[in-house]
């Protein structure tokens, strides 16, 4: 288990260390070492091996942080598995995707080399964090993993280094910080109250604590930033498009799930009488809002990655509603949790495939066009719930909800699925519009890894080890109920395409909604806030300096006056004898008064 974490770390540090050894190599023109080599791509392999390792393991490390406890149990295994799979695929994909840059770097382009070095360092580091947060059972390790992942990923987001990347990076970082702060507050509060060191202890503590609701709210919000809860999702559409495609894939595929993992690890889901119903209702509402709202916002985006990012928000909104139900009705949770995991894995892989697909459409491999595009639309269809893993995930979700008597909710979710279909259509359409013409051999790492993910995504229910219960395929009778949203969506999409073709001009004039919607509001607000802080600080500064100046001035005056006082000394000198007699008289009076 240590190896699983240590290996990426070593891989990450390898290159900088090498740089250090050959100090001065940076300044020299000429050949550079290959940074993104095979070893680099192999970083998640031990983790994969771990995920496939039979049986549960636990690792106790007293010396680690405040006492480390890492567990690999059946609940964590699926997460670990699909995470490492996607990381591997994305890593291999990246070697192909960044080949041009790498060649430039090897040829001596300093800037490219620097950027790649950063990627070579931060990619495995992000992975380390991601794995750690999955495996960690003690709170500090968990938080450590979360933090490492969050901050290391900043480097991935800003990799390209252009203006948009920095904007995305800023949005990402600001929101991440906000989330971290909330998480830290929530963790400290709840851990302090429960006197807990482990996540399970924390969950129990929150369930019992008097202020548990508020702690849970803090945690939910904090992780919600990562999970893209409506309102806190704004970094997603900004950061995902600017990151390199493989990075977007892991960002959207697995890192978003870290927020979900956070919820599952810290919120007392499934604990009866935890008293979190009000929160559950809010969560439910926000989830739905996210699931529906994001589709509306996403549909008007132009960049395919932005569309996909909004789709992620929408999908995560769906999962959020499930969590909300879990909070509302703890009894449903055991069944729901399976659905959530399945859904998460499905979404992770599928979204990964979609993002990788964006790169593929930009650099199409030498495949027949129909094959290529049907492969591209496979995960899209799966995401809408019409095919493969999507179908299974949707069914497992719906069945539980129906059992719990939440028919209305299912309808709403189906509406969201309609939206998803539209989004997918939109994304594919945009991909089609922006498809590239420089083809690459299909046996290059890029298409291969993409294919691997596409296939993996399609078959998630087949290989995902779900604790206790396997995924079930829906009976045929239910198929219409599951498929109608996709159909409706497709029809709507066709109508839209047709409509767009006819009233093309009208669409053009409409002002496009910027990706990141609320971010601009937040940014303005926070800019205002920061400006106020800075102003306040400067005010303090100037007030302090004014005060200092006034004090100095006063001091100078006093000193000058004291200088004046010294002239009385002449008087003392002249009147010494009378003064002596005066002193004597004074003392006499003193004696007399005794």
């Amino acid at each position: 288990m240590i190896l699983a974490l240590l290996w990426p770390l070593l891989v990450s540090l390898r290159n900088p260390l090498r740089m250090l050894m050959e100090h001065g190599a940076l300044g020299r023109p000429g050949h550079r070492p290959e940074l993104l080599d095979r070893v680099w791509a192999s970083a998640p392999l031990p983790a994969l091996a771990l995920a496939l390792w039979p049986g549960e393991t636990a690792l106790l490390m007293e010396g680690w942080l405040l006492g480390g406890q890492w567990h690999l149990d059946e609940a964590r295994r699926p997460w670990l598995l699909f995470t490492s799979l996607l990381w591997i695929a994305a890593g291999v994909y990246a070697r192909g995707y960044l080949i041009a840059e790498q060649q430039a770097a090897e040829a001596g382009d300093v800037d490219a080399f620097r950027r790649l070095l950063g990627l070579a360092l931060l990619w495995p580091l992000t992975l380390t964090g991601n794995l750690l947060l999955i495996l960690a059972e003690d709170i500090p390790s968990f938080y450590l993993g979360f933090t490492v992942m969050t901050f290391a990923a900043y480097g991935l987001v800003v990799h390209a280094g252009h203006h948009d990347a920095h904007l995305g990076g800023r949005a990402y970082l600001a929101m991440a910080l906000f989330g971290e702060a909330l998480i830290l507050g929530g963790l400290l509060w709840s851990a302090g109250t429960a006197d807990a060191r482990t996540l399970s202890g924390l969950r129990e503590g929150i369930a019992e604590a008097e202020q548990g609701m508020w702690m849970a709210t803090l945690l939910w919000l904090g992780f919600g930033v990562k999970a893209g809860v409506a309102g806190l999702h704004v970094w997603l559409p900004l950061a995902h498009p600017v990151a390199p495609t493989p990075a977007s894939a892991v960002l959207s595929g697995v890192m978003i799930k870290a927020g979900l993992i956070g919820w599952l690890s810290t919120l007392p889901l499934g604990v009866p009488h935890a008293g979190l119903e009000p929160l559950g209702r809010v969560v439910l509402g926000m989830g739905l809002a996210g699931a529906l709202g994001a589709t509306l916002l996403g549909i008007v985006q132009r960049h395919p990655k932005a569309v996909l990012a909004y789709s992620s928000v929408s999908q995560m909104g769906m999962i959020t509603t499930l969590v909300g139900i879990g909070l509302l009705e703890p009894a449903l949770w055991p069944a729901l949790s399976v659905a959530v995991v399945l859904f998460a894995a499905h979404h992770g892989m599928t979204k990964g495939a979609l993002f990788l697909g964006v790169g593929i459409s930009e650099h199409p491999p030498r495949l027949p066009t129909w094959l290529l595009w049907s492969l591209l639309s496979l995960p899209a269809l799966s995401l809408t719930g019409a095919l493969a893993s999507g179908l299974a995930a949707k069914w497992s979700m719906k069945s539980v909800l129906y059992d719990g008597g939440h028919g209305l909710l299912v309808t709403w979710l189906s509406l969201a699925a309609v939206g998803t279909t539209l989004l997918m259509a939109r994304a594919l359409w945009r991909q089609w519009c922006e498809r590239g013409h420089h083809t690459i051999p299909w046996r290059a790492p890029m298409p291969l890894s993409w294919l691997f993910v596409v296939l993996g995504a399609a078959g998630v229910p087949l290989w995902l080890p779900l604790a206790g219960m396997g995924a079930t395929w829906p009976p045929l009778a239910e198929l219409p109920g599951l498929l109608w949203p996709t159909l409706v969506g497709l029809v709507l999409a066709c109508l839209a395409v047709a409509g767009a073709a006819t009233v093309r001009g009208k669409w053009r004039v409409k002002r496009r909604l910027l990706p990141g919607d609320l971010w601009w509001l937040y940014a303005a607000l926070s800019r205002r806030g920061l400006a106020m802080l800075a102003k306040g600080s400067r005010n303090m500064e100037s007030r302090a300096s004014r005060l200092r100046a006034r004090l100095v001035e006063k001091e100078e005056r006093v000193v000058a006056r004291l200088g004046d006082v010294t002239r009385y000394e002449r008087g003392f000198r002249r009147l010494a004898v009378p003064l002596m007699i005066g002193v004597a008289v004074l003392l006499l009076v003193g004696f007399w008064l005794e």
Partner: protein
Amino acid sequence: MPPLDDVLLAMPPVLLAALVLFDRHLVRACSLFVLFALAVALTWWWLGFIWLALLEILLGAALTGACLFHALGISPVGGAPQTRLTHWKDPVVLTWRRGLGQSIPALAALGMLATALADMPASDSIAATRWSGQVLVGLGLWAFALHRHLLRRLLAFNIIGTGIFLVLMTLVGEAATAAGHGLVMTGLMVALLGTVLGALLIRRLDTLDAQRVVGSESGGGAP
């Protein structure tokens, strides 16, 4: 009421002291001081302190007088004074207001003295002497406060000292005469040494001053 002869005997030192202190001519004042010391010696003799009388003549009149004249730049060989010192004016003008103001410390000291002495009644034979001593102290203090001139201050100091000796010897009883003698003798010695030092200083200051004046005059002549 003290007998008349005692009063008569006590008068000359007081009168002489007043003249010494307030005479505007310094050489005359110094000469008068010698007379004053002799008068005090007479008083000692009258009171029966022969040794003190002799000491007073030796230390007070002869040596102190010599010192004073030395300070003035008058030597028995050289004769007449050559320096400005003889006509030294007090740097501060004497006005009535100043005179009155400066008498306050003297009066305060006298008051303290009187308070203390009120508890120790004197026999008639020495009352006059004691009074004269007190008057000398008062006069001396007044003059000391009033004058800036160093020599005059030296004179004033000597007169205060003499006043204190007079009071002292009228206070000590039979038992403590030895201690009284000891004190007075020490006091006389101190007064003498002080005067010597003072005189030397005045002399030296005068010389340096003259040099400086000459120096600045010659310096002023140059462009």
